[in-house]
């Protein structure tokens, strides 16, 4: 069953076309990665799909609701972990979790319960009373993703979730993301090809706002006649091997 049906999605800023007639279908429970160089249009695509910015043309239907016609319904079933670690620095881990649960409509009792569940799931139990600004980069990322999941979204956007993390923290976060597969439809953007390869069911490569290829790692390497995802990505992005 399709979770996301994107049709001719386009975003223009003046003469610049950030996303150019993107069409794509993502299945329910799939982890789909968007790959592309800086400025390829990945984050703009995620911003349109999460109703943060309106498309210039085209539409996307998220589990039956159009981002153009019913953005509030879309917002109720999606959530995002932005590129930067988006936590409230002077709030404790518990307060951050309960706050996000609350603004997605959970009452006080349900918020407390959800915060406990998320802290346990993401290994945040020991730091629940600590202010978010005192956490390490890896722990802040975990908190950021836990905040994105506390609303129990059916579709989750992870924009560069492991950016700036060390290898251990990255691997720990991968394990957390793997746990979500099949339960939540995930769109992930990343510059780390090994991350994309390790986590994704399918990969889309964007270049200059256009989606130039979609498939599994095997599909993309076969399509480009290369031996690995990095080489396939370089070829698809117009680079030289």
């Amino acid at each position: 069953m399709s979770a996301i049906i994107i049709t001719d999605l386009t975003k223009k800023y003046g003469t610049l076309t950030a996303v150019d007639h993107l069409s794509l279908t993502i299945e329910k429970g799939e982890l789909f990665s968007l790959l592309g160089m800086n400025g390829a249009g990945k984050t703009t695509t995620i911003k349109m799909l999460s109703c943060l910015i309106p498309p210039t043309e085209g539409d996307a239907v998220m589990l039956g609701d159009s981002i153009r016609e019913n953005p509030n319904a879309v917002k109720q079933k999606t959530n995002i972990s932005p590129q930067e670690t988006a936590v409230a620095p002077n709030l404790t881990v518990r307060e951050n979790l309960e706050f996000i649960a609350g603004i997605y409509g959970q009452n006080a009792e349900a918020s407390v319960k959800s915060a406990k569940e998320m802290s346990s799931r993401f290994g945040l139990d020991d730091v629940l009373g600590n202010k978010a600004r005192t956490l390490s980069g890896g722990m802040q990322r975990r908190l950021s993703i836990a905040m994105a999941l506390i609303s129990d979204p059916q579709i989750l956007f992870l924009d560069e979730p492991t950016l700036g993390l060390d290898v251990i923290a990255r691997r720990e976060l991968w394990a957390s993301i793997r746990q979500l597969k099949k339960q939540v439809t995930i769109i992930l953007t990343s510059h780390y090809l090994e991350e994309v390869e390790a986590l994704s069911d399918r990969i889309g490569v964007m270049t200059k706002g256009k989606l130039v290829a979609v498939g599994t790692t095997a599909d993309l390497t076969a399509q480009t006649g290369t031996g690995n995802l990095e080489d396939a990505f370089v070829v698809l992005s117009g680079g030289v091997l």
Partner: protein
Amino acid sequence: MRILLFARRNTKEILRDPINLLFALGFPLILLFLFSVINSAIPAEAKNDMFIITKTAPGMATFGTVFFALFSGVLLAKDRTSSFLMRLFAAPMTSMDYIIGYTLPILAMAAIQSIITFSAAVLLGLPLSVYMPGAVLIMLPIAVLYVGVGLLCGSLLNEKAVSGICGALLTNIAGWFSGIWIPLDLIGGGFKKAAEVLPFYHGVEATKQALAGDFAGTIPHLAVVLGYVVVFYGLAIIIFRRKMRGDKA
């Protein structure tokens, strides 16, 4: 519900920063105390009532609210540049949830701040008056003006620029043009005329009138303040909404 949750979060963010507390509460109290010391050093025969407590207390209480531009502006700029606001924009909240959520805590803080300032002034010799609650109420529209300035700057600028404009620049402008450092009549000329056009002097005068029980006398001064509220708070709402829609404001 969402507004209150967001307001509670903003209250915690502001109050858990000790520098904010120092500025909001400490600075007006220190100035009040200093003016009181200066006043007691002026010999009676000089007949100089520039720094008597009935004049400095409403001035300091009103001046204290200028820091709320800094608090609201820095908070919004931080939320915006750290992507926290992007996370919230992805949630089912309306622009008014945000605007009111940023404003409510400041109104509560302005009321508490002025109560503390007037209480300190009473200890320094200000006669206790039944009109004090009215003077506290006058602080609210003045605080809304500064929230508007803060939200406008926070929507457009980064944290460092907001600190410069709403901190150093605005506090100096508000201090000089309100006549709390030096009475405007002493300076006179174009400076006085400029001060009479700006809202700062009128904020202080409205508070003075309210504290004296002359609520009719507050009206012309409040009208000027409210005019600026409409402009700055209105602009802040427009720019914030544009930012929320992802427009390049």
